[in-house]
């Protein structure tokens, strides 16, 4: 029974199948919000309200010719999209979605899982860099260099912001952090600044406007993905969608009080909270223009990182005097 449950967990919910369906839905949601903010209709025709458009895009890409550049590292070039998708999906398993029960925790909820999750969410950046590097295209290489430069910008503020609530809750376990804030919902307000910083950093991690510098099409064609096409590009796109869900889930678990109430109520919590985070990401994407790579590093070290430290300071003061 336990094995069956584990398989169910891995393959159906919240594992692979749910993740694929939900991440494509999130892409649709993001595209629709982005389009409506731009006075466009967004996806309309495929499926009801265009819901199947992301799926249709992926199927279309799967049917396209699969090209590997002559001078590219063939093995790396082909295997990276699969590894990337696997990594992003793994991140999802660590979220306290279903197994929210502190008495009988499932094996993938353990002290320190927040660190592991943050680590796993950093890996896609490396995957992008390697993908860019192994395609040996000039534009990809510039994209790859920009991916890493971007990482130096957002990673530290993201870590500082996400670890704030953990310090407040006195735990390195996502389920416990979420539980702590469910008991004291008002304390979530103390993390508001950290939440905003984390949203901005997540935007940078997902490489969306204003941080879509590594694949800025008007500057360096496709950037990281210049040489990718067909199935591999489809996997990368799916990977970014999954990463978006996992990132939004992390923020929801840490800053928005997690997903209490068992399987069904918890599911509703999960959907509403992740969609809220994605909604914020979409707005951020719609109201800004792409900035330069030097401006990103400047911005994150001049504003984001000090603000994140300020947030930590607030939390420490609260912890010392109030709690």
């Amino acid at each position, binding site marked *: 029974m336990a094995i069956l449950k584990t398989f169910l967990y891995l393959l159906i919910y919240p594992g692979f199948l749910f993740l694929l369906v939900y991440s494509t839905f999130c892409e649709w949601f993001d595209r629709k919000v982005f389009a409506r903010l731009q006075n466009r209709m967004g996806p309309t025709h495929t499926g009801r309200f265009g819901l199947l458009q992301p799926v249709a895009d992926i199927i279309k890409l799967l049917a396209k010719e699969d090209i590997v550049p002559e001078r590219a590292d063939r093995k790396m070039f082909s295997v990276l999209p699969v590894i990337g998708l696997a990594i992003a999906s793994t991140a999802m398993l660590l979220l306290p979605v279903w197994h929210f029960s502190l008495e009988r925790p499932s094996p993938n909820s353990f002290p320190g899982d927040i660190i592991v999750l943050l680590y796993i969410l950093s890996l896609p950046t490396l995957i992008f860099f390697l993908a860019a590097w192994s395609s040996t295209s000039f534009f990809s290489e510039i994209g790859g260099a920009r991916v890493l430069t971007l990482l130096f910008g957002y990673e530290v503020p993201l870590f500082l912001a996400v670890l704030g609530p953990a310090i407040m809750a006195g735990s390195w376990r996502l389920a416990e952090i979420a539980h702590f804030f469910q008991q004291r919902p008002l304390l979530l307000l103390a993390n508001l600044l950290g939440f905003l910083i984390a949203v901005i950093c997540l935007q940078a991690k997902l490489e969306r406007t204003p941080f879509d510098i590594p694949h800025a099409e008007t*500057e360096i064609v496709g950037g990281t993905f210049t040489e990718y096409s067909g199935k591999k590009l489809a996997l990368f796109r799916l990977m970014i969608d999954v990463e978006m869900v996992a990132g939004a889930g992390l923020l929801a678990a840490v800053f928005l009080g997690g997903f209490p109430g068992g399987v069904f109520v918890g599911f509703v919590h999960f959907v509403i909270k992740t969609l809220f985070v994605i909604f914020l990401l979409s707005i951020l994407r719609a109201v800004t223009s*792409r900035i*330069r790579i030097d401006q990103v590093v400047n911005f994150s070290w001049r504003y984001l990182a000090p603000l994140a430290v300020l947030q930590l300071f607030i939390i420490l003061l609260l912890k010392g005097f109030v709690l």
Partner: protein
Amino acid sequence: MKYSVPIGPQHPALKEPISLRMTLDGEVIQDADIRLGYNHRGVEKVAEGKTYLQNIYLTERICGICSHSHSTCFVQGVEKLLEVEPPRRGVFIRYLVSELERVHSHLLWLGVAAHEAGFDSLFMYVWRDRELIMDLLEMISGNRVHYAINTLGGVRRDLDEGQVKKILDSLALLRKQSEYYLNIGAHEPSFVGRLAGVGLLTKEQAVDLCAVGPTARASDVPIDVRKDDPYGMYGETPFEVCTADTCDVLGRTVVRIKEVLVSYDIIEHLMRNLPAGPVAIRTPRRPKPGEAVARYEAPRGENIHYIKSNGTDKPERLKVRAPTLGNYAATVEMLKSGFLADIPLIFAAIDPCICCAERTATLVDARTGEEKTVNFSTLRALARERWKNAPLKKDAVWPF
């Protein structure tokens, strides 16, 4: 590490073929070189074989955005040769279309610039409002792009009361929207961060390198043919020349949006004072031998047409200097010491109309890089030699 990057001839940032060869040090541009000649169409040669009336429609097709600029410039020159003056109502309608075209061109540019900077929301909004102008142009002339409203001695279509009212109504909405865009363009932090201080061109450089149009005006050089050498009814129309002193892409953006607002004033002035009378007069079709130069302030800058007549109904020579050509020298200066990320913005900021400016093609050997200029018969001989031994495809079928 120094390396050279080819931007173009095919690149997502470029809507037309041109080759920008950048020498980069990391992300910083060390040197820039512009190669032209990917879209030589031989328009000037074609013009020599057509009558003046036919050439109006040919010159209209030099550019797909400022089509009216070229046809008006040509018509101005021919009317000088014919020694005729179009009736006032015709002049008003002709330059009404000019100003509408300037508005639609500048709004189009703003959208493109926003897209180059990755600001797609502004792009979508601007292009939505540009449709109002396109609708007006379609209402006036029957076409959205190639208006074909000019003719020798006036224009081909008249305006009625309802159309004048519709134009004025649309203007009110457009003015409100344009002020909003001016506000965004000059204040939205991430957008301004991308534009400010990028692509610097000092006033001295702008004068030395003969920059024209908004590029020069953004460097605080108040040149505008409408003011300096008034044609049509511009001498009696009150308007100001918009300039900026920031000398960068932000200045070029602000100048263009301000010009849009000034154009609304001009259009309103034209519509309120539209004289009665005919819109065109009959003109002779054969000018006396002679030559004429017409200047016209196109949305991109000064447009010059030189026409030489030999007494027949066809011009002996037509020379077109499109405004983009005047800005290339300045562009090379602007690109130097910028960032790789700024290339599309700097280049887009001159509002390049590459195909309008193409007047020559150079033959480059792909293997040796050797360049030579050949005449047409040599080119044909080369082609014949290349395909001499190629087997005939007997069973060749069209793929559809």
